[in-house]
């Protein structure tokens, strides 16, 4: 007869003789049950829905009595009583007492002491349902799998950014180190002279030989620019970078790259 009471079950080939732990039901089920409520509004909603009552027509006496019973049970099993539950008890009792007071005839429905509670219950219920809907919606990482095929990362290296400050900083460093700087002193004006030196050299690279006046645009350029251009030519000549020739007095002056032949 012994064999008849032995549980004859096998899991992964091994005899199964004990109840699994996850089938264990805690004896103090109420605690678990009460902890399932998200707060006093949730508990009130539960009481209303359980008795299939119209939320807008709450029988305050019954509701308050039931609510107090739950709160007492929580107290009895030493569940940590949140202040929120006690506060709600006070609200319920206040509403109940106000409803017991004789009502002057002219009082409108807005002054119903339950109105605020109803508003909060309805708002909470809407949010509770919204939360359930959000929970059910498919989500990336749960039900939605997003394409993420592999690719060989080839880095297109972007060129470094250089700001004017970077450039100025670099120049400052150069100056700090260049002990023989004094005779290189160059002012702002001379910088545009240097720019024109480059411009003239570029033109001579293309044209080889230019007439002096071709380097000046008397219509477009203002006086300062004409001066700068003239200074650039002089500087280029001084540095021996170009050669100026004139066949006879008052004949055209020609400019070309100095070839030192």
């Amino acid at each position: 007869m012994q064999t008849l009471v032995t549980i004859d079950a096998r899991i992964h080939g091994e005899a199964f003789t004990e109840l699994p732990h996850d089938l264990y039901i805690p004896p103090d089920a109420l605690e678990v049950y009460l902890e399932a409520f998200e707060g006093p509004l949730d508990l009130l909603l539960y009481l209303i829905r359980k008795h299939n009552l119209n939320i807008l027509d709450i029988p305050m006496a019954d509701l308050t009595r039931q609510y107090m019973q739950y709160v007492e049970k929580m107290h009895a099993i030493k569940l940590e009583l949140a202040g929120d539950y006690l506060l709600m008890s006070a609200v319920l009792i206040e509403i109940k007492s106000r409803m017991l007071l004789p009502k002057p005839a002219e009082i409108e429905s807005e002054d119903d002491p339950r109105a605020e509670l109803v508003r909060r219950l309805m708002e909470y219920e809407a949010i509770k349902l919204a939360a359930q809907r959000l929970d059910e919606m498919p989500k990336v990482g749960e039900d939605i799998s997003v394409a993420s095929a592999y690719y060989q990362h080839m880095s297109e290296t972007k060129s470094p950014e250089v700001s004017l400050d970077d450039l100025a900083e670099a120049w400052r460093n150069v100056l700090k180190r260049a002990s023989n700087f004094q005779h290189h002193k160059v002012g702002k004006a001379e910088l545009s002279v240097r720019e024109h030196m480059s411009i003239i050299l570029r033109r001579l690279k293309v044209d080889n030989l230019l007439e002096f006046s071709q380097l000046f645009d008397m219509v477009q350029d203002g006086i300062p620019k004409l001066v700068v251009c003239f200074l650039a030519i002089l500087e280029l000549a001084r540095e021996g970078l170009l050669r100026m020739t004139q066949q006879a007095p008052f004949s055209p002056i020609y400019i070309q790259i100095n070839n030192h032949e």
Partner: protein
Amino acid sequence: MSETKNITELKNVLEAALLTSHEPLSLEDMTRLFADRMERTTLRMLLDELKQDWAQRTMELVQVATGFRFQARVEYATFLARLNPEKQAKYSRAVMETLAIIAYRQPVTRGDIEEIRGVAVNPNVMRQLLERDWIDVVGQREVPGRPSLYATTKHFLDDLNLRSLAELPPMEDFTQQEPPLNI
């Protein structure tokens, strides 16, 4: 000099980019794929065609808040779920209710959330939502204490497959019609 000669090639570049990107690609991202100038209207036309090309296939091209992405059609979800048996833990009701309040009533303070839920907000709840990058702080309410104002992020919309908050299930669906108070 045009580096891509025809529509098929342009679509292929888009397909390769969308299939390999872990994040949705915005229209701006996609214009960067091409060295030549790409008009928005051309790009949209190409995306439409690409969507059509994939209409009968395993992945679908969808538009979410931050851009476009390919995702496996819903009928493959049960198969794919078997690859990762250790499911992401479900969020608690407190987390989901807090998220719902932020989603539908944003921007809100912690005080607002506590008011609606009728209980104190556990800091851990906010932390979970912040860490998931589903909510963030968008400002402070100009009242004493300057409490932070929370709102949902674009990432939240992406994760829920939405283009905008307007696509959330409408709140009215959850609220019972308000009949006259029956006293």
